[in-house]
């Protein structure tokens, strides 16, 4: 069964139709790469999934539960949106780490705040916090930053910051982890270390949606690829289908342009 279903999603900014009826689904453990030129709506789609933008039409279904329906205001109440967005994690292009917290504090802040809402929190505060901290350390260890737990973001390189951001998103154990061009703000020599972490997540069957300009990476890591252009999904399929044997002219043109510029 698919863990995520997106049905006829539409979003407009003023007169501009950024998403014009997006349909796709994603299975548990799959990684989906979304490619396309700038302005094609990839990032907006990701922001809709994370409730940072409100779609004008359509539905989003996670694990069979309708978590957003543009026609049903009861799915859009703020208090519930907060809980529902926890199905998703988001790694931003510009990291957006909290500058006043160390790497470990960045990772454990949100889980600690959420733990405070548990009914038995006051009684078991210390054990909750110990557990969260241990988990945070494990996650930073997984992204190769064991020796940077106490470092503040400005002391880290872009690649290290992005790896902290990935650990931070993983800390809440989202069903679906989203990446919004995770290496676009990095110097070329730093993209490798971030891609390596994402690849390791894919190998452990983390369900992911990755918006990326790294075509070789998308081809080798993703289980499925979506090519978007001007707010619609032009083509989707396995990496072999989309990259190796694109059916649509627009996909061929995009991939040819990409090859030329590299």
């Amino acid at each position, binding site marked *: 069964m698919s863990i995520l279903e997106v049905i006829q999603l539409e979003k407009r900014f003023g007169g501009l139709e950024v998403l014009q009826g997006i349909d796709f689904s994603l299975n548990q453990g799959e990684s989906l790469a979304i490619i396309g030129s700038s302005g094609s709506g990839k990032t907006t789609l990701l922001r809709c999934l994370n409730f940072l933008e409100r779609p004008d039409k359509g539905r989003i279904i996670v694990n069979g539960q309708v978590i957003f329906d543009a026609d049903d205001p009861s799915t859009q109440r703020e208090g519930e949106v*907060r809980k529902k967005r926890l199905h998703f994690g988001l790694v931003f292009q*510009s990291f957006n780490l909290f500058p006043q917290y160390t790497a470990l504090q960045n990772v454990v802040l*949100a889980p600690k705040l959420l733990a405070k809402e548990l009914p038995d929190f006051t009684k078991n505060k210390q054990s909750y916090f110990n557990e969260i901290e241990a988990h945070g350390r494990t996650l930073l260890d997984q992204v190769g930053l064991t020796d940077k737990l106490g470092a*503040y973001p400005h002391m880290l390189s872009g690649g290290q910051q992005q790896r902290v951001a990935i650990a931070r998103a993983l800390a809440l154990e989202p069903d679906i982890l989203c990446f919004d061009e995770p290496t676009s703000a990095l110097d070329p020599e730093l993209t490798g270390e971030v891609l390596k972490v994402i690849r390791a997540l894919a190998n452990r069957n983390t369900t992911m949606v990755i918006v990326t300009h790294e075509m070789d990476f998308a081809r080798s890591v993703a289980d499925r690829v979506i090519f978007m252009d001007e707010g619609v999904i032009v083509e989707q399929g396995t990496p072999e289908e989309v990259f190796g044997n694109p059916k649509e002219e627009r996909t061929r043109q995009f991939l040819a342009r990409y090859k030329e510029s590299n």
Partner: protein
Amino acid sequence: MTQLPMIIQRLSESFILNGKLFALTLLFSIPLGLIVALGSMSRYKFVQGPVRTFVWIIRGTPLMLQLIIIFFGPGLLDLPFSWPGGDTGRFTAATVAFVINYACYFSEIFRGGIQSIPSGQYEAGQVLGMTKPQIFLKVTLLQVIKRIMPPSGNEVITLVKDTSLARIISNKEIIMMAGEYTNQGLIWPLFATGIYFLVFVGILTLLFARIEKKLDFFKA
């Protein structure tokens, strides 16, 4: 010269009024300024419009004039409200005028600080399931404080010297006290008041430098 100790003592005593006005203004204008800042950022036009107009009027007219209007206004306009008599009334009116005036200046510093935080900080908090108050308290507040420290230091230093404007409604602050000697033909007490302000501002400058240094552990 036999007058010297007496003059110093009277100048020092009168400077206490400057200090009290300074402290009370800070104490009340900072929270009020935060409320005004939130009002001027409100998405509701019927809140934002009047608040911004009010800030424009207060920042657009001399504080000296505001002191006069606030002190004499109620009597001249036959309002049912009046200031208490004597020194208490004069000082209270001065405090109210200073608090309103400085709240408006602080509000613009706060607004600038709050609006300078990149939207990515709020969004990162949101996708991590934080509530709006949590994002404000745990994520943005300290960054705002760090950013507003230098302009706030400026404002606080200006306030020290502005307190002497309270003499316009006959508060016996240090310059008014020195002026009494000037009227008797003795000019140096007026010059000496500069030392009081200079020392006070010096202490505040050191204090602000310390706070800024404390906040130096992160970059924002």
